[in-house]
């Protein structure tokens, strides 16, 4: 039985790496691009969609019961049980 919170930790680590990579990408875009409205618009759209996805996922994750666990031998059958 694998605790569900392990998956949350893994997701948070991946999210941290993502934020780092996104910041580096946006910095490169702003730093080396020609000053134009398209530069700001494309970066704004990227940022907006990323924030939206993280927010929606975060809202869903707040409703999850993290005491549950995943039974790997029973992944496609039956409901999971609390740890």
């Amino acid at each position, binding site marked *: 039985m694998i605790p*569900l919170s392990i*998956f*949350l930790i*893994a*997701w948070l680590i*991946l*999210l941290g790496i*993502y934020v780092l*990579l*996104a910041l*580096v*990408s946006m910095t*490169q*875009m*702003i*730093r*080396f*691009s*020609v*000053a134009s409205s*398209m*530069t700001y618009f*494309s970066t704004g759209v*990227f940022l907006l*969609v*990323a924030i939206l*996805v*993280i927010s*929606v*996922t975060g809202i*869903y*994750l707040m409703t*999850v*019961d993290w005491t*549950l*666990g*995943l039974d790997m031998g029973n*992944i*496609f*059958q*039956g*409901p*999971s049980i609390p740890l």
Partner: protein
Amino acid sequence: MIDLQHLPGSTPDEKTVALLRRHWTSLVSLGISFIFILILPVGTFFAVGYAVPEFFDDPVRTTLFVLGLSTFFLYAWLFLYQHYIDYHLDLWIVTDNRILNIEQHGLFARTVAELRLHRIQDVTAEVHGFLHTMLDYGNVYIQTAGETQRFQFEDIPHPNQIAKLVLDLAEKNRQEELGEAVEEFQNGSG
């Protein structure tokens, strides 16, 4: 950020004549990737729901699906943005004095090359293929004096017009340089 009014190494009276990027068709693969990214998670949701109807009845499996889906979407979105950065940061800037070729390779490699207009000897425009002809985009090759390597504008819109523009600017620049040299010679000898 690059300010077109104050390009790096510019003279005070230098004017930007054209700012060139690859034709928008270069972004078609990006558009297809975006559609694929949108379809894949939704398709997976329906495929799993169809194959194993009770799969999403379990909160654990639903949570894992949401975590996986958001991770996939976020990283795919970042990949698309980086691909767009690669397109957006590849630039050719034509001024009345020189041509700047700025190329972005990935996120951390960048090449900036400069060519003085008076050194240009030959300009060739190439439109090759059905789509290129229909949408009027192609390559422009610029040959300079004493160099075997050609300066190249890749897949730019209206290559014939740009080739003519570069040739006209080069001719004008050469005449200005010649005029200045003659004036300098006359002042020196007089």
